[in-house]
């Protein structure tokens, strides 16, 4: 055990993966000498050399398309996309190539590509630096999608993702890069990929979220507790596949669920969670699943982001709705 920030845990996870498997390569913009704009790859090029830790030309489609060729050749590329908003130029290579190559070739060609993306808001960034694009990828067959919320999961899941023979979108909430916690680097724990985690048990309602909002949800649960409301908090962790068993088990007990994410509401991951939970828990539900999300707007200028991003108050407003209390989210008519 040693205390690490989430950024440090990711760096350690990458180092461990590079050490464990010579086929692992790290590639992206500014990840070499600079160590990435968030320093997640700090020191790795010096340690493993410029071939295993490659600065690439400034072209995201080129990064992913080249990674496809490297995977074709048996390598396991870990691509860093500098910011969420810069993944779209690579969308075609990800959706039409990375996601489909294994099925296209009837299993002959594997695509063990990990795509690391710093995501989300909360850090006062410029335009295109605060997107939460998870829904695009969770809707795309052939991809796995992971979102980490703390140093331990960051360390474990990054290595699981790199070791996985399928392509994995690995989302890192920027606002948690500096979050510090004890990390067990023993790798003794069973692989966590594909599973959600109950962070706090409760009886009145289930609060489901992931990534940067997990800490907010835990704070909301504390605040709710002060008002005598017992919230169960679940960190989804895996956005594709979704751990329906964990969700259904909780919601069947609490009968109420609030889903929170930063991305816009319409056709967001919350829609799938609400629909899937309703399908599995219809007769247990006391109220329709409630969504507390970013609005259906382009991510706003940083001075406005605190109004756009779900915070403790908006989560509690959602809990009120789920409990049938007065709320701005009271049922439509």
């Amino acid at each position, binding site marked *: 055990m040693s205390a690490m920030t989430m950024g440090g845990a990711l760096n350690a996870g990458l180092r461990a993966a590079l050490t464990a498997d010579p086929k692992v390569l790290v590639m992206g913009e500014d990840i070499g000498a600079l160590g990435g704009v968030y320093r997640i790859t700090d020191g790795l090029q010096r340690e493993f050399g410029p071939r295993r830790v490659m600065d690439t*030309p400034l072209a995201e489609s080129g990064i992913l398309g080249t990674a496809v060729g490297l995977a074709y050749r048996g390598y396991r590329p870990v691509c860093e996309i500098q910011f969420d908003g810069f993944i779209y130029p690579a969308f075609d290579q990800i959706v039409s190539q990375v996601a489909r190559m294994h099925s296209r*070739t009837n299993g002959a060609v594997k695509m063990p590509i990990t795509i690391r993306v710093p995501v989300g808001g909360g850090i006062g960034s410029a335009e295109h630096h605060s997107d939460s694009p998870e829904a695009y990828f969770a809707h795309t067959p052939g991809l796995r999608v992971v979102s980490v919320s703390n140093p331990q999961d960051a360390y474990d899941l990054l290595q699981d993702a790199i070791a996985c023979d399928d392509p994995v979108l690995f989302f890192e909430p920027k606002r948690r890069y500096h979050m510090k916690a004890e990390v067990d680097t023993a790798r003794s724990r069973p692989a966590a990929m594909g599973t959600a985690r109950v962070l706090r048990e409760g009886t009145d309602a289930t609060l489901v979220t992931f990534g940067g909002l997990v800490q907010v949800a835990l704070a909301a649960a504390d605040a709710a507790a002060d008002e005598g409301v017992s919230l169960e908090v679940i960190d989804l962790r895996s956005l594709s596949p979704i751990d329906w068993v964990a969700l259904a088990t909780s919601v069947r007990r609490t009968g109420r669920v609030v889903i929170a994410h930063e991305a816009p509401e319409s056709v967001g991951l919350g829609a799938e969670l609400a629909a899937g939970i309703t399908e599995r828990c219809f007769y247990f539900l006391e109220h329709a699943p409630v969504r507390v999300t970013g609005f259906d707007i382009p991510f706003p200028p940083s001075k406005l982001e605190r109004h756009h991003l779900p915070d403790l108050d908006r989560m509690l407003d959602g809990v009120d709705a789920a409990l049938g209390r007065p709320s701005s989210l009271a049922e439509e008519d």
Partner: protein
Amino acid sequence: MSNTVAAPRASGTPDSDPALRGAVRILTPSGERTDEPEYGCQVADVDDEALLALHDDMVVVRRIDTEATNLQRQGELALWPPLLGQEAAQIGSARALRSDDFAFTSYRENGVAYCRGVTPAQLMPVWRGVTASGWDPYSVGMATPQVIIAAQTLHATGYALGLQYDGSDAAAIAYFGDGATSEGDASEALVFAATYKAPVVFFCQNNHWAISEPVTLQSGSSLAGRAAGFGVPSVAVDGNDVLAVMAVTRAALARARAGGGPSFIEAVTYRMGPHTTADDPTRYREPAELEAWRRMDPIDRVEKHLVSRGVLTDERRAETQAHADQVAKAMRDACIGMPDPDPMSLFEHVYAEPHSDIDRQRTRFAAYLDSFEDAR
């Protein structure tokens, strides 16, 4: 707003074609073998026998093309992209490859596939619609056909980088068309290949058309010149001259093996058929243009040459024809007999490792299919 044409329509006949001017040529349209100063040496070893073999290849792939087109007309194939007219470009380049080299192609490189060892039977299933790929890429050193224009240029570059890292002297080759050069991926591939000196050959078949669009709409100047601007050595070659194509491809491969990095080849050829069996070229191109290019037929000139050498005897012709017919028959038999895939195969290979959402859907669909069984 004036209506002057935004871009010239006609794609140009061989005589007026700027791309052909200055293109490397060894075998003239009249069948004369010239000694080309720079690249001639690359094919010095290609004697009459070797040339007869290349001729056999070209005749066979043209026969495959004809047979497949018929199979499509007869409803046995959903679609077919003919390579008619591009036999020399595909055979000349593919026969320059080593078995450990790796080809990333578009949908039209059935001639390349044939040379890589893909069986005619394996060519059928994709176009019949029974599977997304007819062969295991690793067993033949060729990726399955790429439909997304230019995407494979980056895959070839990445694969080549892997070869470089592995310390191999093998090379990757990317096949793509004139239209593909407009896609951002094609340019990004040149950037990455130049930066990392990747052992990759960019083989562009300029067949003058991208469906209905003439190459003049894709580029204001020569495609070979495009690559030079990225610091990638490039050359234009008469794509209907199998010897010249083989020569420049061998030279490019030699550069790659020697650590000299990427090369770009513009094979100037012509799509004599429709874009695919679903296309109707009469809507957009002049018959005269096609006629002019017929005189450049890649097989004709080889035959003229071999006849003048007295080696393409009637017996030999008959043998080649018999070979072609036998290949065509094997292909037809494989195609017509092909069973439809099992519905449950829908869920196979979506992921390499278990995925709970897929598992649930598979289970439900199996139950759904059973419900019909029960109904009986």
